[in-house]
């Protein structure tokens, strides 16, 4: 089915009107900015209901197959709906791991039974998913996962722990990478990938309190937790390939996600609004020459991201350091977020010292919280320091330390 421009425009208008009409009112408490920050039951319930509403309106999973609850329509319609969600800054869709990683993975390589069992619940937010990749002692070294999965007849017995489990408390399922053969030839050949139910004996989710004072991440302990072999995704000891396929969905390198946005990062337009509202010497802060200079720097830097992506597609302009733009994107964007949030605090003058919970905190203290949470970007997924090493070694060819 191909759509002409008129049909696309009509659909965009319809979506735009629906979100304008149905965009939730201020809930009266501060919402998280991503699925990694869902720290209270009231936040979770609000976000789950919102996802369900978007799904029921037909703007989520539009391109997923009808037989599993999807819309069976062309991807471009979902892209239009997703862009509109970002544009209107509506709350993100909270079942992020299900919608963007686990769901596409199951559709890509799951059995018919798995698709039927899992996909509808991912879309309507009945079944929340979490991820069990990182372990306490192996930050970014995924291939070194040590959580044990020992075969016992047609079951596996799980022992060990996973860390940074977002939504762990609310999740019904986890995608889990575990060591099923400790004596394999290489560490990568001894891993298996499971779809594990969370509400079974031997699985305990312990919240981790973040630097913000809030919750959102957990450590998940497995003590003789037994799962049937039907929970295997892919073949036994073939888990590394499945994990790599999952990461390709996670990084957006491969399409097939259900749609919707997963994160509400800050941009300079929000800081401009803050600079107009904040005061310096009885005048709007945006009139202060030093503030203006910083704002211009942020505007140029933010524009660099889009222009770098544009240039990366022009071959003659990336001859010398190929891969440089792609490999530095995470470092550039996360450090930018951290500095932008930090600047937003300084704009607030004395009020920068308020924190979430005080009635006088600017925008409920979201900038203070957002500044602290920005470290999840500069630390998670390989710290900025590791990113510098990787770029220095792989792009510039500098010697390893």
């Amino acid at each position: 089915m191909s759509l002409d421009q008129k049909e696309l425009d009509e659909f965009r208008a319809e979506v735009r009107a629906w979100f304008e009409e149905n965009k939730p009112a201020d809930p009266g408490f501060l919402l998280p900015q991503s699925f990694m920050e869902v720290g209270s039951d009231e936040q979770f319930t609000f976000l789950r209901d919102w996802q369900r509403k978007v799904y029921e309106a037909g703007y989520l999973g539009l391109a997923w197959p009808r037989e599993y609850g999807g819309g069976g329509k062309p991807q471009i319609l979902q892209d239009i709906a997703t862009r509109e969600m970002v544009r209107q800054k509506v709350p993100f869709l909270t079942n992020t791991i299900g919608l963007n990683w686990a769901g596409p993975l199951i559709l890509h390589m799951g059995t018919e039974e798995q698709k039927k069992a899992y996909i509808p619940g991912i879309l309507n937010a009945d079944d929340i998913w979490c991820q069990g990749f990182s372990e306490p002692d192996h930050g970014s070294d995924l291939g070194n996962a040590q959580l044990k999965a020992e075969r016992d007849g047609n079951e596996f017995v799980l022992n060990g722990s996973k860390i940074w489990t977002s939504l762990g408390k609310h999740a019904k399922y986890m995608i889990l990478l575990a060591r099923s053969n400790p004596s394999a030839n290489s560490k990568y050949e001894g891993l298996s990938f499971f779809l594990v139910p969370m509400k079974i004996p031997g699985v305990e989710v312990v919240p981790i309190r973040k630097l913000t004072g809030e919750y959102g991440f957990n450590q998940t302990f497995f003590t003789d937790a037994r799962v049937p072999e039907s929970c295997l995704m892919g073949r036994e000891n073939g888990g590394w390939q499945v994990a790599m396929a999952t990461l390709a969905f996670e990084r957006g390198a491969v399409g097939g996600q259900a749609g919707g946005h997963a994160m509400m990062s800050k941009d300079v337009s929000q800081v401009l609004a803050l600079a107009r509202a904040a005061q310096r010497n009885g005048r709007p802060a945006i009139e202060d020459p030093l503030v203006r200079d910083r704002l211009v720097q942020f505007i140029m830097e933010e524009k660099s991201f889009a222009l770098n992506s544009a240039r990366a597609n022009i071959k003659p302009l990336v001859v010398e350091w190929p891969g440089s733009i792609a490999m530095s994107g995470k470092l550039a964007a996360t450090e930018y977020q951290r500095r932008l949030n930090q600047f937003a605090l300084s704009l607030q003058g004395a009020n920068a010292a308020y924190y979430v919970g005080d009635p006088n905190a600017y925008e409920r203290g979201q900038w203070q919280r957002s500044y602290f949470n920005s470290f999840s970007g500069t630390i998670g997924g390989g710290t900025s320091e590791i990113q510098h090493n990787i770029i220095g070694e792989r792009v510039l060819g500098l010697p390893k330390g």
Partner: protein
Amino acid sequence: MANDKRPTIHFSDEQAQLLEVATSFAQDKFPLNKARARVAAKEDFDAAVWKEMASLGWLGVAIPEEFGGSGLSLAEVVTIVEPLGRALAGTPLVSTTLVAQALLKAGTRAQQAEWLPKICEGAVGALALIEPHGDWNLGHLTAKAERPGDLLVLSGTKTFVTDAASADLAIVSVAMDGAPALVLLDRQLLGAAKVEREIVIDETRRSYRVNLDGVTVPSDNLLDPSRTPDTLKNLDEAACLLLAAEMCGGASGVLVTIVEYLKTRKQFDRLIGSYQALKHPTVDALMAIDGARSHLYYAAGIFGDAVENEIAVRMAKALACDALAFASDRAIQFHGGFGFTYDCDAQLFRRRGIWCEAQHGDAAWQRKRLASLIL
């Protein structure tokens, strides 16, 4: 900010071809030891190489075909200037291109018909826009033209006029009847001015102070006064674009110098590039160059667009200034004791960077202008 509008970079086939040709030309004609020879040379520039550049058609890239040029735009000139900047080439390409642009914007038909074909063939152009007060505001003019009858009598001093001793023509800005005016001086009229060599930080350049007192010029040499204010603005923006290209090239060149040294120099039995204290800032330099180059080619691609033009070129120049300043400053430091010597190439790049920052405004100046344009 319009987040749903993704900017695109317009990059033509001509740009791609010129970039490739100019890159190998620069490698061939301007190895870094050439920059050293340039420093020591007496002449304003290497006339033989300049002749080759003319025969490649590079001086007429942005000049219409009716005047002997290729009829392309400054976007194509950028792809020549960038690789030349990388090699620290000292040529009159930027100033000559800007002189041609001034004639295209505000020259009379007669001036265009006389000079544009000559420029395409290799005539050297000099720009005399700066004054001893050093103000980057090109409208701040103390040099004057007075008009008793049919002649213009000039007075005042212009500074940083590159290649003035050998230029075939110069475009000079002066105040006349309370407004800015542009005057064309040919070789002979330039000879009537007092031209003194300046000692400047970028030793690959030959720069002159030009005292205009008593120089008398036919009024035919006046560029169209009604178009002068727009032309000065356009010259400032075109200069920012070409200087940004020169600096992006220089920054890439000095980054290579750093990387080579970090991969070969050992201290405490280790290659110094393995130390994170050196590796990480080198990556920061790479990322600064990436951002500056993306802005540069965006600005090049839209040059001439009425609304975005000034914003784009000033952003490109601001970021290119910072990228070259950071990379060349770190290059000196990372070379250790050798970096402190005249023999180390790092200082050549640092000097080039300071020169280019001083031309048409440094990063902070550009940002101040940008603030009034976008906030």
